[in-house]
């Protein structure tokens, strides 16, 4: 799970563009309509490098709402629900894998 910030853009399957929301750092996903959402189900999915680059370029230009956008892998369930494609994204999506002490 090498940090995506240190990776070159490689597309080996379906991907989305994700970032952190400027005001609170929350995990957000880029939609096809050029908005941001916390719902991964609403993320725009790209399957080609060109599409991913287009999504990323638009997301990067939107620096007032989002910080450090990047391309991340996704997986689909049998019924085509979108899931994060690696452990890093799973943790970003679902939160820490540990019980939080102050909870």
């Amino acid at each position, binding site marked *: *799970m*090498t*940090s995506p*910030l240190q990776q070159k853009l490689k597309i080996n399957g379906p991907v989305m563009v994700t970032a*952190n929301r*400027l*005001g*609170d*750092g*929350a*995990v957000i996903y880029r939609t096809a309509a050029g908005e941001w959402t916390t719902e991964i189900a609403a993320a725009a999915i790209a399957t080609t490098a060109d599409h991913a680059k287009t999504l990323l370029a638009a997301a990067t230009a939107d*620096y*007032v709402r989002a*910080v*450090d956008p990047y391309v991340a892998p996704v997986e689909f369930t049998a019924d085509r629900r979108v899931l994060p494609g*690696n*452990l*890093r994204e799973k*943790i*970003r999506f679902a*939160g*820490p*894998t*540990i019980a*939080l*002490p*102050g*909870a």
Partner: protein
Amino acid sequence: MYLYDDFDKTLVDERVNEFRDQVKRRLSGELTEEEFKSLRLMNGVYLQLHAYMLRIAIPYGTLSSEQMRMLAHVARRYDRNYGHFTTRQNIQFNWIKLDELPDAMADLASVKMHAMQTSGNCIRNITTDQWAGVAPDEIEDARVWGEILRQWSTLHPEFSFLPRKFKIAITAASHDRAAVKVHDIGLRLHKNGAGEAGFEVMVGGGLGRTAFIGKTIRPFLPKRDLLSYVEAILRVYNQFGRRDNIYKARIKILVHEIGAEAFGREVEAEWEKIKDGALALDPKAIAEIASRFRYPDYERLADEPAELKAGLAADARFDTWFKNSVWRHKVPGYAIVTLSLKPEGGPPGDATAEQMDAIADLADRYSANEIRVGHEQNLVLPHVRQRDLPELWRALDSIGVATPNVNLVSDIISCPGLDYCALANTRSIPVAQELTRRFRDLDLARGLGRLHINISGCINACGHHHVGHIGILGVEKNGEEYFQLTIGGRADEKAEVGALLGPAVPYDDVVDTVEDIVAAYLELRERPDELFIDTVKRIGVEPFQERVYATR
């Protein structure tokens, strides 16, 4: 405690106002992230996986109870009710909102706390022995020198944009509790043949991608010359340190590439030019800063009072805790008490707001309003009357910070790992938690003796895995979490980098592998009091490799 003056207060207040304006401009879009990033990093603000993280400095690990209550307040008001004490005497809050950060910082400034020097390529928070000022084996209170260096380094214009971050640690004791040999500059205060106190100056220590033990470039530096000499080191580093490759930018690479001797010559040449200038320390100035460290009005007490003896005789659990977590104080009748932030199944170094408040209350009642933070991610009450120990233990036990595992196998140093950190390759905390469950038998742990496990979730080594007696490093292999294990590392006065044990093991095997290492140690040690680290030193890595990998 150190008493800050109006200058410090003004400096911190101005910094908050400046940052409030920077945040406002970022939120409005006036600043891009690229423009804002270096500004937020100068104020200890990182963007992690789920949220912003604020790292607050605890200079030389000293906290007042008032400051601890403020940390509890920040945890409660701005975060999720807990904080994480780090390996560099800082505390991190993991869920801070950017738009609330200026208010959080203003609240912290009201008790003279800040986040300067906790990130960015500057001289970072100066660290020292968490027992400084009370340790029986020290020659003087190293915090005085930490404070002198803090005043010199804070917002130092020449050293605010170094090739890379720069860490300085100081010890004044015979046993190094500050890990000075794995810092960019390590300072060991000691006495020369004439009985004068001065510094052994080590440079080029560090962990991360390339681990090195610091090399001594000056065995004895008079106190008056501390600032000029450190400035000379920083100047040589600033001039020759690499800026073209982030992985080769730390001073340790420079020292390694040109050699400690050549580096030392450059420093001495630079120092000759400035040693008698403005940075030469006037004894009056040193005394003035030393006078601002206030110690309790210690009572005249005897060691081992009746209350303590009665407590030890009456309660075996108290006796066990006392033997593990209480150390001799330099003043008779007093004790140094370590509070374990490593409960079974807990994230190492974390404390809830409720625990912080309770610890602050206990510090008021039993430790002259003072708390210390150690690089092992535990807390310390430094001024406890021995007669109060039974009562204090009951209170600490009731809030979950009296696990008698200090320096034992479950006293694990761990970075936040992939559960929080944007740079991590693997998780660290769940590995630590499972290890504390596996080694929950404290009788067995005591039988093992001192055994430090350090875990890092990536090569940046925030969990100091290289210098763990057993070091665990998370690496990624084809999208899966694997862990490399090292043994034989240590961070004290005999500091060494651990040796690789063998191929990395998958996440599900790492705790079993550690258990196998421990089993091998029990088989291989010469006698029950030969510590793990001494067994490794005596026989090397191979006998461990044979046993641990025989069935893998």
